[in-house]
Structures are given as structure tokens and as C-alpha cells.
């Protein structure tokens, strides 16, 4: 066992000994609170979030473990309690999992984002379990008058071998509440894990398959009204006026009013990004009645700023790629000189459109705001920030605001931006009634915080022997500068130049599953394939040579290169082996790709099969190094989901604009991948290295776009540069 300092201000422990049944309750708040900026959310600093655990031991031995973080389908509601249960040494069958409420006194970092819940929570969650186990052991030692060191635990039992005494955790729980919180705790060796590393099914599975109310949209309360919003039809427009009277008399309609979501004096958090300052609210008895009134209501809008179209975004991004920014993001050696002496030069430009998040559950939130208090309940990835905005907007101290999280029907970054919850609260306050705000699918799709549109230009130089001697990348995005200058191949090329631009637009953007990586990985890995081909080398061998360079003789200080080349090469070698890689395999068109993001390494090989005249995705092999895999079953689910998501969006999805107005507003024109279009098979392999776990909700998505692009080239003989691939003419995929 490893002895670990609990790193705890012990006064930060909250003990509640007043539980019915004499249970033991421990709260954890190890680290000081920190506020995140959008930049931090995107750039994933090493020490980003704090984490908390919370558990109750019942006198019958059952253990309730609170899952502190929001659940958006990444399965932390199962995985985080597994880590606590492991160190507590309780049998999983004796664990009850509950979603913790937002409680900034007990918990910190209650956030779903950046694939960081497990990574950031790992040590704290383990200590949460281990500390409780320590106190139970101490209670037993005192009760039995035996040395602490002679007490052992197993699956919820305390044992003293010499005297033959034993007791369940439940029997010692009450006494344990009187034990001083230890300054040091023992953590298990990885080899002794009995829960971590096993397949545990989704703790909400039964509720999901039987249709139990779990999601924000399912919330119903006595006297609750339904609310909908009407927002400007185009980015760049704002409210001018309306005639609400005829609509107010429609059946079931209680009120129609214009309101300011964010008056100027509102102290906004980064999570309010994308919020529309003024909206119209429709409040009524039922959803359908509100929908009917929404259709009938005529609102006048006026132009507030430029009405932008996709053609404009495209031209402006292209223009940005033509010029060098004032400062490079990173510069090693002399690329210009290297290009002059290069034997071969490869140049390509890649682009991708805006994407909507399109969580299957549209935005919604329940709010009941009275002069005394505010109760909020719904799907939110950033509850703590929501509470702060509400305090400012409602003019209420945070102590009087209660934010609770429901399971979320998808997140993908959309629910980082809780403007809809603020809207719900403001409407409830105005109505002095409990309300549930519901966005229609159209509302959801046409006022998003979208994945930005991107464009990137690559240029590579090879010497006579096909060695990469120069690499120049210049990227631009809408409200986003796209480039991670210290990621691969930075550090593996002598002459390297990374440059980035951001195009300011009034179309609101934000984090979308694997921000920036979701585009740049595919572009980079497709370009890498072109360069490998020009070098005359096998695409995997070409990459491995670069990793060898980064391992043995890195350019720049190794710590400035934002990846570990050995782990990177490791997943590539693993996928090579598992897929029996040869570049012209068995008549099938294959592509390979590898990428590092969210602290994890992923390499993939994708086979295309002949469809009806067009290629279809066959099998995907995926190698992942995310350190210790807490729950292999759901880890594979995450990996599969990311692969399907990546293939789907790169192939089929786009959000375009005409005069500021989104041209797609529902799934009839916005195409998402469907069952027949998903890969035939996905096989996932995890590197077993015992390293502390890293992110998994996002990393499998970015590289698959490159693997698909590279396989498509093999199938069609054409490189493709513009997403979605389905729009390429002649079509590449069906």
C-alpha cells in the first residue's frame, strides 16, 4: 500500500453525525476553489479542476456514494463512485449511487468538461474512500482494543485475524464518526484493485430502459407552467417590438412578454457566453399550447450588427490564411530556408463548417424563483457558474439559490453554457410561479454556441531521402484560433512554424466535443498521409520515425512539446499490430491516424468496404492509452461513441448561414449519422501501463476523421479537403 498525505485542511471536512441510523457522512473539499476561464477550459492545464467525494455508510452496511459531477453520457455517475468504492473496500453490490446536488461548501469542481472528471478526480476520489476506510478501521481497533495495523478490510468487512473478530462497516459506522480525520491514508496498490478495471454497467441503466423520469425535460411539479422563448431569427438582429395581445388570449396562454436576460449590470460568467441579451417569453399551461402561440406570435426584429453568411466566413477565413500574423505561435529553425532547399514540397488547405451540438434532449430547465429563494433543476454541465450568474441576475445571495442536476440527454459542450437556465429563472421570477423552460429543436439548433468554422493551410518540405525537414501550419477559426502549436509534429521537425488567426464574428461559438481537436486532428492526419506518400514511406513508419526523433533528439525543450512521444508511438504500434497493418491490405481501402488530446493517446485504423457503388465504413481498430481504465465496459462505449460521432459529423453534418440566419433548423436538413452509416465493427484496445487515468469522453473522436479521410483517398484516389465529405462532388460516401 502507498501512504499518501490527505492534503486536507481538516476543518474542510464536513461531518454530519445526526443522520438517522447513526450513519457516517464525510464531505471532502481538499483543494481551494478555482475559477476557470474559457481559455483554461480549452487548453486543459494540468491542474485544472478540484474534485470532491461524498459517502454515507448505513448501519446495515449499505454505502451511498454521491457522484459529484454532472452526467452527460460520459458515465462518470458510475465511474466516479467506483473509484471511491474501491478504496473504501466495499462490494459494488452494496453501493447505492446518487447524483450530488450542487454544493460549493462540500464539493468543488462539479463540472462536466474537457474529459477531466476522472483525471482530475482520481486522487481525491481515492482518498475519499481510503479516508473513510481508515476511520472505520480505527473505530474497530478501538472497539476491539487491538492495534490499528492489524485490522484488515475486505468487501465491507473489518477483520482482526489474531482475535478472530470481525464486523461489517455498518456496525462501526456510528463509532467511526467520532474518529479524527487522518492526516495520512493508505491507498491500494493497483494490483489489488477489485472494482477498478472491471466491467460495471451503467447505474442508471434500468431507469433508462423503463422510461423513468431522469432528464430535465421530465421534471414536473405541482402548479408548474411551461415557458418557451422566441429569439432573433438571425445573428446580428435584436428585438424591436411585438403585438402580443392576440396571442395572450390563445388557449392556455398565461403571458407573453419581452425580457432582458442579461441587463448590463449582470455579472456574467464565462458560461454565459453566447447568451442572447433580450428575448420574448411565452408562458402557458402546456408545451403544445406554447408551441401554437409561438407559431402565431409576430415579433419585429432590427439589425444590430452585420448579417453574416457562410460565403463571408469562408472568404474571410481564406483571406486570413493568406497573411502571416504579427507573431508566430511557435517557431523552430528556419522554415523558409528549409523550403528553399527541399526536394519536395506538399501543400494543402482543409476546411470545416460550423456544427450545432444537437444534444438529443433540447435545452430546458426548471426554475421556481420566489422573493425568498430560487430553486433550479435541470441539465447543466456548469452548475457552479450558473449559481453565480443567478445570484447577480436575480439579486439574491448564493445561499438562497439551490441548483440541482438532472441526468443530461447529451452535453457535447452545449450545456457548459447555461443561458437557458438563467432565462428560466428570470421567467419564473417574473411570473412568480414554477416554470419549465423548453426549447424547441429549432430554438436549440438556431441559437447555439456552435463549433466554429475552421480553415487550415499546411506546407511540408522533404529532403532527397524523404525526411521531413520543414513544417508550416497556419490556421484560423471563427472566434477561435484553432492551432495547438506545441502538439505533434512540433518537436519532431527541425524547421517548424505554427501561426494562428481568429476571425471575430457575431455567430456565437463555444466548446464542442474535443474543441479545436475535433477539426485539426483530421486535417493534420490527412495532411500527414499526403506527406508520407510524397516521402515514399509507409504512413505508420513515417509517423514512427518522427516519434523516434521526438524521443531521441527533440526539437525545443521536451517539456514544451505537449505530448509524450513514447506513449504516442505506443498506440500507433499497438493499432498496427492489432489491425495487421499493411498499407494495401487485403483489397480493402485503409486509413490510419493518431492523435493526442485531453491527456490521452489514440491511434486508429479504418477499413472501407464497397457499398452500393460508394464506400462504406467497415471495421475500425482503435488503440487507446488513457492510463488505468476505470470501467473497461463503459470506456469502450465512450470510444465507440466518439468514433461514430467523428465519422458522422465529418461526413454528413454542417450548419450554414444566409444573412445571419442558420439554414438548418431541424434534422430534416441537418444530417446526423444513422444506424446504417455507422461502422460495421469497432475493436478497441487499451494500453495497460498503470499510469493514472486521463480523459476518455473526447479523445477517440478527433483522429477518426483523419483515418476516414485517408481510407477514402485509397478508395477513390482523391484527397478531400472540405467537410462534410458528403458534399464533395462526385460524392465520396453514401
Amino acid at each position, binding site marked *: 500500500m502507498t501512504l499518501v498525505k490527505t492534503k486536507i485542511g481538516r476543518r474542510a471536512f464536513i461531518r454530519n453525525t445526526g443522520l438517522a441510523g447513526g450513519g457516517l457522512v464525510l464531505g471532502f473539499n481538499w483543494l481551494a476553489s478555482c475559477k476557470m476561464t474559457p481559455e483554461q477550459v480549452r487548453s486543459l492545464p494540468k491542474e485544472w479542476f478540484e474534485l470532491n467525494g461524498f459517502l454515507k455508510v448505513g448501519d446495515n452496511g449499505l454505502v451511498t456514494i454521491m457522484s459529484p459531477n454532472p452526467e452527460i453520457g460520459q458515465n462518470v455517475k458510475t465511474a466516479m463512485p467506483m473509484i471511491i468504492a474501491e478504496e473504501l473496500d466495499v462490494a459494488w453490490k452494496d453501493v447505492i449511487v446518487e447524483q450530488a446536488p450542487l454544493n460549493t461548501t462540500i464539493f468543488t469542481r462539479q463540472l462536466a468538461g474537457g474529459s477531466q472528471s476522472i483525471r482530475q478526480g482520481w486522487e481525491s476520489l481515492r482518498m475519499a474512500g481510503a479516508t473513510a476506510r481508515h476511520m472505520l478501521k480505527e473505530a474497530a481497533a478501538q472497539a476491539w482494543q487491538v492495534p490499528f495495523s492489524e485490522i484488515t478490510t475486505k468487501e465491507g468487512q473489518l477483520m482482526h485475524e489474531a482475535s478472530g473478530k470481525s464486523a461489517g462497516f455498518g456496525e462501526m459506522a456510528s463509532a467511526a464518526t467520532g474518529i479524527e480525520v487522518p492526516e495520512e491514508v493508505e491507498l491500494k496498490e493497483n494490483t489489488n484493485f477489485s472494482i477498478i478495471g472491471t466491467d460495471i454497467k451503467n447505474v442508471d441503466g434500468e431507469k433508462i430502459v*423503463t422510461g423513468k423520469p431522469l432528464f430535465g425535460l421530465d421534471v414536473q411539479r405541482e402548479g408548474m407552467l411551461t415557458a418557451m422563448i422566441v429569439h432573433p431569427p438571425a445573428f446580428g438582429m435584436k428585438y424591436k417590438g411585438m403585438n402580443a395581445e392576440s396571442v395572450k388570449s390563445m388557449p392556455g396562454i398565461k403571458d407573453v412578454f419581452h425580457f432582458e436576460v442579461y441587463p448590463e449590470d449582470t455579472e456574467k460568467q464565462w458560461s454565459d457566453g453566447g447568451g442572447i441579451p433580450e428575448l420574448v417569453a411565452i408562458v402557458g399551461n402546456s408545451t403544445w399550447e406554447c408551441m401554437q402561440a409561438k407559431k402565431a406570435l409576430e415579433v419585429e426584429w432590427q439589425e444590430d450588427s452585420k448579417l453574416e453568411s457562410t460565403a463571408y466566413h469562408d472568404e474571410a477565413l481564406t483571406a486570413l490564411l493568406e497573411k502571416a500574423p504579427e507573431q508566430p505561435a511557435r517557431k523552430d529553425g528556419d522554415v523558409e530556408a528549409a523550403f528553399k532547399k527541399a526536394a519536395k514540397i506538399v501543400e494543402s488547405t482543409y476546411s470545416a463548417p460550423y456544427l450545432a451540438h444537437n444534444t438529443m*434532449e433540447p435545452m430546458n430547465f426548471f426554475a421556481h424563483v420566489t422573493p425568498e429563494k430560487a430553486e433550479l433543476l435541470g441539465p447543466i454541465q456548469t452548475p457552479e457558474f450558473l449559481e453565480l450568474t443567478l445570484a447577480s441576475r436575480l439579486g439574491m445571495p448564493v445561499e438562497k439559490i439551490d441548483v440541482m442536476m438532472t441526468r443530461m440527454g447529451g452535453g457535447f459542450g452545449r450545456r457548459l453554457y447555461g443561458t437557458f437556465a438563467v432565462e428560466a429563472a428570470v421567467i419564473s421570477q417574473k411570473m412568480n410561479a414554477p416554470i419549465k423552460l423548453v426549447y424547441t429543436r429549432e430554438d436549440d439548433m438556431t441559437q447555439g454556441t456552435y463549433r466554429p468554422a475552421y480553415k487550415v493551410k499546411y506546407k511540408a518540405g522533404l529532403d532527397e531521402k524523404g525526411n521531413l525537414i520543414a513544417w508550416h501550419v497556419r490556421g484560423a477559426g471563427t472566434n477561435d484560433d484553432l492551432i495547438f502549436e506545441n502538439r505533434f509534429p512540433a518537436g519532431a521537425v527541425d524547421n517548424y512554424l505554427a501561426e494562428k488567426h481568429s476571425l471575430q464574428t457575431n455567430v456565437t461559438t463555444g466548446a464542442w466535443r474535443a474543441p479545436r481537436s475535433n477539426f485539426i486532428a483530421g486535417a493534420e492526419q490527412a495532411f500527414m498521409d499526403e506527406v508520407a506518400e510524397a516521402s515514399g514511406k509507409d504512413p505508420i513508419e513515417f509517423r514512427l520515425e518522427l516519434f523516434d526523433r521526438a524521443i531521441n533528439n527533440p526539437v525545443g525543450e521536451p517539456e514544451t512539446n505537449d505530448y509524450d512521444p513514447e506513449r504516442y508511438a505506443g498506440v500507433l504500434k499497438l493499432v498496427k499490430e492489432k489491425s495487421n497493418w499493411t498499407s494495401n491490405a487485403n483489397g480493402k481501402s485503409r486509413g490510419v491516424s493518431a492523435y493526442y488530446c485531453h491527456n490521452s493517446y489514440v491511434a486508429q485504423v479504418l477499413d472501407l468496404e464497397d457499398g452500393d457503388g460508394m464506400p462504406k465504413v467497415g471495421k475500425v481498430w482503435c488503440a487507446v492509452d488513457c492510463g488505468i481504465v476505470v470501467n473497461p465496459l463503459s470506456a469502450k462505449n465512450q470510444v465507440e*461513441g466518439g468514433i461514430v460521432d467523428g465519422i458522422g459529423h465529418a461526413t454528413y453534418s454542417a450548419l450554414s448561414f444566409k444573412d445571419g440566419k442558420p439554414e438548418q433548423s431541424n434534422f430534416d436538413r441537418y444530417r446526423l449519422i444513422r444506424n446504417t452509416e455507422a461502422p460495421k465493427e469497432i475493436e478497441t484496445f487499451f494500453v495497460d501501463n498503470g499510469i493514472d487515468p486521463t480523459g476518455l469522453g473526447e479523445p477517440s473522436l478527433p483522429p477518426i476523421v483523419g483515418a476516414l479521410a485517408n481510407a477514402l483517398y485509397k478508395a477513390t484516389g482523391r484527397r478531400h479537403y472540405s467537410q462534410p465529405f458528403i458534399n464533395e462532388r462526385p460524392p465520396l460516401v453514401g
Partner: protein
Amino acid sequence: MATYTLNINGKKQEVDVDPSTPILWVLRDHLSLVGTKYGCGIAQCGACTIHLDGKATRSCVLPVSSIGEQKITTIEGLSENGDHPVQKAWLEVDVPQCGYCQAGQIMTASALLESNPNPSDEEIENAMNGNICRCGTYLRIRKAVKMAAKS
């Protein structure tokens, strides 16, 4: 407004609503049967799938006035104890990620197996193609449908 007597999950239920109200909102808002989900409102995503006389039907575009005597089954009524073979297979395979679309997926799958107890891979994929899963659980959906078909 008009009164309708509906046969839902084997029980008669009376509602007083506008005739144009889609059955989805009757279920969710008026009868508190919220297992049937709203996803798009235009019959494109399948989240709202119910059985109408045993056939998989999109409830978001189906006015209550058009139901008549037809029997409605929702996810809440698919089985008494959540033990329909499709539900059991869904748990065994650990299909759901976020879980929001899964009630609709299960209703489509169970209607498929009712009419075609031994579907081919292609028949499964085609039958499930109308149900979008944003989390990308499609491979496990196929596997679970096959497992349910065998049981």
C-alpha cells in the same frame, strides 16, 4: 378543447385537450408519462416512438384526434417489470450512454421483433435507421436487437 378516451398501456385514460395536440404532449404533459421523449417534433429522430396497435409510430406528429380506438403502448407499458427481452438485452449489452433516445430505440426494436422475430443484420439496421442516437450507440443497439431476437 375536446375530450378523448384513450387506451394507453392497457388502461382507459380520459383527456381534455385541443384536437391538434400530438399524442406525445398528451402523454408527457397531461398524463405524466414522460418516458416518451421529445427530440425534433417533425418525425425525424425517433425519440418519441410509441406503439400504435403494435406498430412503431412517431408520436410527435400524431394528433390526439386521430387515435380513436387504437391501442397505445409507451415505454412505461412495454413490460410490467422492465423485463421485456429487448429491455433485458439493452441492459446486458449496456447500450445507453446519455440514454435520452433509448426509449424510442427500444420501442422501434420491440415492434420490429414483434413483426419479424428473426431479422437479418440488414433488416435490423434498416429498421433502426429512423432513430437517431447522438452518442453513437448504434453498434450496441444492433447487438442488443440480435440478442433479444435469440431469446
